[in-house]
């Protein structure tokens, strides 16, 4: 008999976290025109959240560190992007390996500003500025129902394994 000292006992459970990037940035809105004419125009960020062309161009100029030549053509765009985070409920099975029987997947939504303008030395500057909310760098968290409850995730995994049900995945988006 081979003793496996890592063997926690058949039916033991654990929760493992993982993350994966989304496929890129998704444009939400855009405006182009002479800065002084469009600076107060609103752009959609996400849902009912709005910003202005001025906010975007100023964020870009601050990030780049180069001042803008007034009354040139500017373009301002808003983007969002996703990062997926999840937790797997795993069960130590008769095969003496950890197997995933439940997966709960959530999504972080990030906001980005992008803008382009001409600076004083006649260079075109453009930048993507990642947003800085007060607490997290994402602006919305689409949480799956069990995401914040590790004991429930472990229980769902054990339940699926014990009743020989299929591995299930739940989504928060």
């Amino acid at each position, binding site marked *: 008999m081979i003793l496996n000292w890592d063997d926690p006992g058949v039916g033991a459970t654990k929760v493992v976290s993982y993350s994966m990037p989304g496929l*890129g940035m998704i444009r939400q809105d855009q405006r182009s025109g002479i800065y002084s004419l469009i600076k107060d125009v609103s752009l959609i960020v996400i849902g009912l959240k709005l910003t202005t062309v001025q906010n975007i161009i100023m964020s870009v100029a*601050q*990030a780049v560190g180069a001042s803008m030549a007034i009354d040139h053509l500017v373009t301002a765009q808003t983007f969002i992007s996703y990062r997926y985070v999840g937790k797997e409920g795993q069960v130590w099975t008769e095969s003496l390996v950890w197997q995933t029987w439940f997966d709960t997947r959530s999504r972080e939504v990030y906001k980005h500003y992008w803008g382009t303008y001409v600076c004083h030395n*006649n260079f*075109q*500057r*453009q930048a993507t500025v*990642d947003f*800085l909310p007060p607490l997290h760098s994402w602006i919305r968290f689409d949480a799956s129902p069990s995401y914040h409850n590790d004991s429930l995730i472990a229980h769902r995994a054990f339940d699926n394994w014990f009743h020989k049900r299929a591995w299930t995945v739940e989504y928060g988006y």
Partner: protein
Amino acid sequence: MVTSWRAISFSLLIVTAVVLLVFAVRGERSITSYYGTHETHVEDLRRLNTADHKNPSGAYKVALSVAIRRIDPKYSHLVFELLVKNPEVLMGNVRVLYLISERAHELLSASSLVVSNAMAEMPTTISPTGLLGIGVSRAFVLRPVIEFTRMQLLGVIAPIRASVTWVTPAGETVTDYYVFGASDLEMDESMDDYFAD
């Protein structure tokens, strides 16, 4: 009674029409993934990691700079800018793409580490007499709770692989590939202030 129902129905019709009109006027609000709509950029990304990094054409100069801009006592932006400058000829439709080392995820809170001007809908042309250059930047969020030294920062952000694609006056499309090691990066003076703190 019938008249009031007609009035309510008419009001609802007007409100619906106004809402539809507002969305129609907003016009170009298209929800498109820029990687989805710029498949050539996906191909460019693949090439960045596999291309034989040929010598650049020599028709212009490039510089890649790094800066740290403190936003508030807790948060800062790490800003990269790739500058294409001093064009000796007219360079049409300049497209810039670069990829920060994957290890930078240790210090940055970001969904991806790609920097590009693919989202610009109007092509950028630079020349010795017109626009003199183009700078393509991205300001990433530095993770607030992590302390690191300048050497640790350079160790995770490099190498940075980049491509500059442009059209010559003869109409030929040229792509130059670059690999920037830590010693090739230009440090903004804001880095000195940040690490002095």
